[in-house]
């Protein structure tokens, strides 16, 4: 009878936590975790203790107090008797406005510059290189301040428009006034307006949505669906008979006629800016601060996006271009139909971080007096209430939410365009 003897069980000794490779990594992690928790605990207890010493309380009650200050650019109804929370909301909308405008413009400029940088034309390729290197290598704050300084110093003040023989005149058939305070463009007005829908009642987040705008958007969307249906029909006819029916007048009609009908029904007309008192009145007022910030952020971020686009295009093997060329496609269509769709897969992930950068860089807005969330909640509100901890935490949370939302959206898009591997 054979006895099977188990190898003697290795006894666990404490020193094995350090000397045995099976446990060592675990030990290091546990120690690091404890250290980290201690640090966090120290910071929190220190904060609480110091707040207590200086006699400050932590609370968000100040948010419902009247703000007491005015904000120049408001996208929703606001006056200085509204709460700090509403002021923060106004600032948040301003942040979102410049971020959205900036992201769109930066993408358009970036793609164009990125493609042009690979142009075989020596001059164009070099010029775009100069653009990229110039914008990429100077801090964005300087670009913002520089853009603002140019707008303020070179454009005429509103008072230059006054008098019988003014030094400055309005542009484009007297409809657009370009001043050193901003640009006034005609605004769309509706004489038979449908009114607004009021959302969120009397809470501090309430806002109005113009029914006219909703209607116009609905009509445009419906038109686009109509155009698609026409195209599908034409495709089907082409498949069947080999001949493509002429559809351009149908397409044009579907796009234009419903829109025109709605505009006429609403009594659409333009309100023109006119000099009145100290400033121009009427029209839509694009403030210098918005223009400077938007321009600087777009041009700066576009330089990075251009590099991403160039990298994406270079990642597509030259064989693709050659093959497309062999099929008889022209360079334009090769870029649009063959190279760019594939390059997008490389471009989008770094593009997400550029969008995030742009949004976060928009917090430099106060340099030109643009009242974004940093300027309202983490600027004036912080100062008037003295709630540094609360306002900054809230501000950080808001930026975090904005960034994560952008990230989620772009990741969803990335998943749609990325190569499906089987």
């Amino acid at each position: 009878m054979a006895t099977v003897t188990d190898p003697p069980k290795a006894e666990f000794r404490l020193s094995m936590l350090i000397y045995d490779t099976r446990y060592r990594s675990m030990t290091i992690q546990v120690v690091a975790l404890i250290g980290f928790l201690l640090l966090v605990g120290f910071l929190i207890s220190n904060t609480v203790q110091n707040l207590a010493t200086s006699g400050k309380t932590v609370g968000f009650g100040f948010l419902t107090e009247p703000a007491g200050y005015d904000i120049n650019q408001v996208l929703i109804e606001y006056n200085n008797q509204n709460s700090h929370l509403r002021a923060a909301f106004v600032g948040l909308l301003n942040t979102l406005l410049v971020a959205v405008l900036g992201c769109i413009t930066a993408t358009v400029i970036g793609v164009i510059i990125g493609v042009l940088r690979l142009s075989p034309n020596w001059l164009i390729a070099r010029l775009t290189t100069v653009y990229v290197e110039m914008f990429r290598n100077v801090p964005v704050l300087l670009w913002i301040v520089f853009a603002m300084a140019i707008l303020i110093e070179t454009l005429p003040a509103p008072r230059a428009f006054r008098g019988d023989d003014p030094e400055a005149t309005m542009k484009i058939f007297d409809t657009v006034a370009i001043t050193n305070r901003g640009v006034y463009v005609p605004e769309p007005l509706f004489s038979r307006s449908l009114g607004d829908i009021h959302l969120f009642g009397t809470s501090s987040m309430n806002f109005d949505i113009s029914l006219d705008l909703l209607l116009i958007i609905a009509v445009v969307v419906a038109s686009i669906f109509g155009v698609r249906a026409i195209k599908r029909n034409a495709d089907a006819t082409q498949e069947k008979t080999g001949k493509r029916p002429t559809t351009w007048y149908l397409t044009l009609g579907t796009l234009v006629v419903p829109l025109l009908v709605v505009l006429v029904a609403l009594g659409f007309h333009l309100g023109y800016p006119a000099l009145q008192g100290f400033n121009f009145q009427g029209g839509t007022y694009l403030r210098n601060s918005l223009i400077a910030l938007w321009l600087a952020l777009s041009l700066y971020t576009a330089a990075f996006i251009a590099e991403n686009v160039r990298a994406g295009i270079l990642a597509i093997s030259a064989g693709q271009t050659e093959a497309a060329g062999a099929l008889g496609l022209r360079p334009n269509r090769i870029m649009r139909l063959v190279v760019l769709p594939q390059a997008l897969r490389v471009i989008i992930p770094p593009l997400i971080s550029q969008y995030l950068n742009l949004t976060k860089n928009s917090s430099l807005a106060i340099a030109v007096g643009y009242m974004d969330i940093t300027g309202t909640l983490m600027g004036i509100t912080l100062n008037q209430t003295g709630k540094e901890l609360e306002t900054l935490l809230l501000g950080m949370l808001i930026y975090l939410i904005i960034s994560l939302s952008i990230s989620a959206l772009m990741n969803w898009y990335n998943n749609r365009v990325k190569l499906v591997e089987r």
Partner: protein
Amino acid sequence: MKKSVFLGALTVAGLAATAGAAATLDDVKARGKLNCGVATGVPGFAAPNASGEWEGFDVAVCRGVAAAVLGDPTAVEFVPTTGKTRFTALASGEIDMLARNTTWTFSRDVDLKFTFVGVNYYDGQGFMVPKELGVSSAKELDGATVCIQTGTTTELNLADFFRVNNISYEPVPIETNAEAQQQYLAGACDVYTTDASGLAATRSTFENAADHVILPEIISKEPLGPLVRHGDDEWGDIVRWSLNAMIAAEEYGVTSANVGEMSAAAGDNPEVNRLLGTEGNLGEMLGLDAGWAKMVIESVGNYGEVFESNIGSATPIGLSRGLNAQWTEGGLLYAPPFR
């Protein structure tokens, strides 16, 4: 700038435990330097001169305190602060005191936990406009674009003034005096509003100062004064009585020229004797040398001298004493007795 607000807040939040009950006097003595918060540059009040030394009306208060505590008016580290950063800098212990034309208000005193030790300039908010606009009253400013320094009481006064008078305006928030000046001169705003003294100071630096008028309306009370943190009353007393020493010195005719002579031996006026340390032990009570007030007056001068040499009628800023005259001359300056 933003960074410093953030860092300041973090510090408040707890990284440095300097705030609160720590004895500021000991810290200052150990450091050998007074950290004093001033404006980023308001001519006459606080601005570096051609050789880079800070000078001005508010700067003199810092130098006075440094002279009283350390015996050396130059032992000051000036920390330029904006309207936004100043309170965080003080609360976090980055500076020992703030002398930056700061308005004494209830909420700053009570809610922000600061102690205003006195008033060194009684001011009010005014408006400056270019003469060519032909405006003679602030009530004619309907629809005007107004440059304001953000993070100040002026912002709130302005909102109140325009609301009460039922007229509209377009605020342009600006971080520093220099930027405001640039925007105002370029015509990007019609009006510049801040404390009337600040307007006079700013106007004095213009090429054509005569082309700009300060409107008659003063829309607020702005008692400006130095402040310290809550929680260290001994330090607050030192700053308070350094300021009072300057004011009392003017009242009793003690100047930087005659203080040496007057402090050499006890004179006829017991109040002056106590002030200059030739009688009594006021210095000891403050935890300072007996000659602390003498040091203040010797190095920066009395209130009147400081006023005249920095912002008085003989300077480009050209402010008259007005409310800031001694109580004996019909002003509001009234130093409590040195007893």
